[in-house]
């Protein structure tokens, strides 16, 4: 296998006495959809924050596309093609849906020290943003204030903003959390449609989504990955069943 797109080596993060991420190794191959599952408190969100650059790591290294990005800030990682969505919806509520996505386009269209021309009338920002809204199925909601979107629509907007940055790798933190059955089915279908074109790291509790999308699955328990493998292999893994799936999937 060629060098993985994302290489994590010995990544560690402590909160006081608690080790949230414990010398963690992880390889994400180009084009792969890789799910990270684990019980509550396993350190999934901490790991995502470390990968996205929102949380400093105490030790270890992260390489992305052959470059050491361990010390890079979140915006710097975004500019290199690492996009994320948040577990708790994080959008610009006072702006329109289209503005939200256009801002993400703008962030990747050179510097923004431009003081005169109205950004809302720049086709170079608005057109790509509209295209992405159409892609995620929000075209009809472009001019609505993002705050007044339904929860499921806001989750879609999250993904749209991540996509608008033209990423090579998507870090998705529970994209179907809090969604109804219909909404989550639609989201899974959408993610299936971009899968393969993009590399995706998916942190998810919803096992339907995980087994529908993932090429490989890693199981995170107490900040360490106890198993990595294909969905079939993970399903069959006794250690995993005991540590995690035991309570959920076997029932």
């Amino acid at each position: 296998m060629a060098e993985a797109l994302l290489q994590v080596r010995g990544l560690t993060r402590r909160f006081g006495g608690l080790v949230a991420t414990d010398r963690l190794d992880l390889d994400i191959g180009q084009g792969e959809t890789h799910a990270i599952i684990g019980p509550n408190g396993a350190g999934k969100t901490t790991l995502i924050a470390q990968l996205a650059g929102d949380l400093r790591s105490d030790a270890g290294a992260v390489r992305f596309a052959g470059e050491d990005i361990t010390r890079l800030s979140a915006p710097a990682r975004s500019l290199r093609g690492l996009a994320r969505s948040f577990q708790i919806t994080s959008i610009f509520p006072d702006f329109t849906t289209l503005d939200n996505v256009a801002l993400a386009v703008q962030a990747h269209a050179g510097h923004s020290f431009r003081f005169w021309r109205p950004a809302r009338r720049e086709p170079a920002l608005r057109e790509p943003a509209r295209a992405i809204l159409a892609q995620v199925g929000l075209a009809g909601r472009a001019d609505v204030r993002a705050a007044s979107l339904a929860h499921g629509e806001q989750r879609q907007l999250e993904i749209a903003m991540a996509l608008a940055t033209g990423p090579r790798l998507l870090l998705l933190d529970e994209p179907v959390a809090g969604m109804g059955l219909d909404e989550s089915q639609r989201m899974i279908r959408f993610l299936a449609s971009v899968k393969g074109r993009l590399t995706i790291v998916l942190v998810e509790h919803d096992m339907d989504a995980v087994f529908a999308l993932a090429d490989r699955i890693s199981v995170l328990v107490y900040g360490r990955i106890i198993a990595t493998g294909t969905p079939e292999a993970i399903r069959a893994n006794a250690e995993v069943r005991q540590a995690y799936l035991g309570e959920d999937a076997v029932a």
Partner: protein
Amino acid sequence: MTSRARPLVLGLGLVALAAVPPVGGLLNQPFYVDLVRRVMIFAIAALSLDLILGYGGMVSFGHAAYLGIGAYAVGILAHHGIHNGVLQWSLAIAASMAVALVIGAVSIRTSGVYFIMITLAFTQMLYYLGISIEEYGGDDGMRLAVRSQFPGPLDLQNGTVFYYVVLAILLLFLVLAHRLIAARFGMVIRAARSNEARTRAIGFSPYRYKLMAFTLAGAMCGLAGALLVNHTEYLTPEFMHWTRSGEIMFMVILGGMGTLVGPVLGAFAFLLLENLLSGWTAHWQIIFGPLLILVVLYAKRGLFGLLPGGGPRDG
């Protein structure tokens, strides 16, 4: 601009402002020309604060610093016999920009209550600096013997000419601010106010944009300071007193934070009210203080929200 009534109201306001000197002359009430000129100068200061406070989400409690620096730039040059307005005002802008850059560079690294306390503390430092420099009047300040001198018909000694100069600058800044907040730059600082984590996640580094906004606002307020010292024809460290910062902030809130017309309305309401109450009792602040609390608690939308079409703002 959701209402068709809005442009009409704004147009009427502009006509009213332009009509103040002739009407004041007709009624032989020069006092009002003076008052409105003062209001417009503070409107510029309040507008500049609103750029960083209302649009950028930076609660700067030190905005009077730039008023003072602009005033001192003019006063110090005049003290040394340089009355050229272009030089004086350029220095006012450059000096307040430089100071805003330094204060901003330190304070924007922090956030929340640290930011408030640090901007307040630095302004107090400049206040004490003004007091301690005897050369420029120390505690008492200095008189400005001659107003800034410009070539041609721009004679500021003429109160009416000066009035229209201030009005023109206010309008210019309103237009500039209107463009700036809608341009890419404005979208970034408004996004950072709305959700800084998200702004970073999509690839913006908010610090440099916030610092730029802070610096521009400082420069704008510096020019207001240059105008103010020409208006009062004296200056004291009181220009930079922390209560002045609080007053400018109150103007912004009173008029409507995060709007362009709001600070102008707020400056009007504040100074007219101050005028009214202080004509009535020397202890007007005993009414003013509780009034401020009531506005904060119950009328955060400000006067602008009362205007036709003054609906909820976007971004």
